[in-house]
């Protein structure tokens, strides 16, 4: 028997067939198709990808997608924190309904959310007619859609952590004379930084790739309100696979960098906090 054991022995049957099927199906559906993207990107090479990305229309779309996704994730971090706080710590009539509703952006198909948001924020819509500036068909409209789509990520990541925060820490702070606000900002919030970062990252990643809920409200004017996923579709429709691949590659790469930064920060905070 060699030292390396692929799997530990077990009395249960069916490992081989289940394991084999898993890999085959995974390869057919996910790995080979994604491999095609990688292959296509590789055949373009970095220089050409860079050249495509620096074309004004492409660059504008990428900048718009990433900028608005960051902004929307940031807004969600703030309001998601408030929502999670209220839902885990207070009891009030309708709390359970509100809690269930947080999952709406997951449950509503994106196209449905998209036309609904467009209708509300259009110049003659419920909200659009109330404000003196345009929301729909501008980057602001995109921002609204991205906030909608990202909210549950922040709330759902924060809730379990918030429920687990040791109440004694807050009590200790109070006995030491700290006012409630001081306790919240200096004792509770610092322990929420890691899940807040995770939620932010998830919301951001979702927003960058989001298509359905955005295009109806976006206006889709090249260079102004055209998001990167839409640009991919446009390029594909023009049979410009290279252009589409380049945009997709950059989207993936930039998302990866942002997620990496967030994850490293999170790991660093978590390590520092350790167990108290």
């Amino acid at each position, binding site marked *: 028997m060699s030292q390396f054991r*692929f*799997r530990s022995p*077990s009395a*249960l*049957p*069916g*490992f081989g*067939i*289940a*394991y084999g099927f*898993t890999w085959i*199906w995974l390869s057919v*559906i*996910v*790995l*080979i*198709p994604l491999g*095609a*993207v990688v292959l296509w990107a590789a055949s373009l090479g970095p220089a050409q990808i860079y050249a495509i990305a620096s074309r004004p229309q492409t660059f504008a779309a990428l900048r718009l997608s990433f900028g608005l996704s960051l902004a929307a994730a940031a807004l969600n971090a703030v*309001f998601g924190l*408030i*929502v999670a*706080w209220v*839902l*885990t*710590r*207070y009891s*009030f009539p309708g709390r359970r309904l509100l*809690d*269930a509703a947080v999952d*709406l952006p997951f*449950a*509503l*198909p*994106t196209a449905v959310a998209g*036309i*609904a948001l467009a209708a*509300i924020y259009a110049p003659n819509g*419920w*909200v659009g007619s109330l404000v003196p500036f345009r929301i729909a068909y501008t980057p602001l409209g995109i921002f*609204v859609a991205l906030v*909608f789509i990202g*909210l549950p*990520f922040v709330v*759902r*990541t924060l809730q*379990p952590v918030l*429920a687990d925060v040791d109440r004694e820490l807050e*009590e200790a702070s109070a006995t030491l004379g700290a006012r*409630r606000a001081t306790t919240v900002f200096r004792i509770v919030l610092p322990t929420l930084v890691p899940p807040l970062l995770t939620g932010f990252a998830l919301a951001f*990643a979702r927003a960058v*790739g989001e*298509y*359905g809920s955005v295009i109806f409200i976006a206006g889709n004017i090249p260079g102004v309100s055209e998001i990167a*996923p*839409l640009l991919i*579709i446009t390029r*594909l429709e023009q049979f410009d*696979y290279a252009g589409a691949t380049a945009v*997709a590659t950059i989207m993936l790469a930039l998302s990866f960098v942002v997620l990496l930064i967030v994850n490293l920060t999170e790991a660093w905070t978590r390590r520092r906090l350790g167990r108290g």
Partner: protein
Amino acid sequence: MADAAPPSSPTSESPAARLALIAVAVIFLGFFLFLPLIAVFTEALRNGVGAYLAAFDDPDTISAIKLTVLVAAIAVPLNLVFGLAASWAIAKFEFKGKSLLLTLIDLPFSVSPVVSGMCYVLLFGGQGYFGKWLQSHDLQIIFALPGIVLATVFVTFPFVARELIPLMQEQGTSEEEAALSLGARGFRTFWSVTLPNVRWALLYGVLLCNARAMGEFGAVSVVSGHLRGLTNTVPLQVEILYNDYNFVAAFAVASVLAGLGLVTLAIKTGLEWRYGDEISAAHRR
């Protein structure tokens, strides 16, 4: 769910602060979550029930509904079988490279739907790797049913597996081993021991998978080709109606999808309240 502290607790915010925070949360959620939901139904019923129902007389809409049901009927069982196989292998056995496999299974969640559709175009589209070969054999994947099914399977790939794996891992292998020691055969053990233990999580996963399969827009949009009456799923039909300024019909069709989403959400919430432990804590996301 943690019980909220009593109002007199010295370690909670003042009543005024609580009220303000609750108000902020309610208003924020009202604007971003409830308003769009209400809008779907009011816009759909804007011209009365007659106009609402008339939207479903459109043959294109009817064929879109048929297509969507067909696609879900193919994609969901495929992912169900995959989910069972993957969770059996991953949760009940110890082997090298498990976390890599887990990461790869989750991969479709972190890929933009548009990119998910795009990979199949790069493979099977006119200029794709197999485009020429498919054309010469008169086979069509992109802009046809197979492409739509593939894209749908891709985006719903992890749903069942990721509900089952944490739960089955938690449950361990002792019950199966007991069944085997009592003389049950392998499949019998799976059927009468493993499956009943995960039935709620399985239902939950299938439900989410189905909702997403029927509602998927971005990925399907890329591979469908938007041929009216032929390759339009319900969400794509909503888009077409909307872009035709046929708003009432668009919202009427959308309201069906919204209803599906709401029913899914209601069942999911109900399952979580009743069988929270049996669905396992790891699912909340």
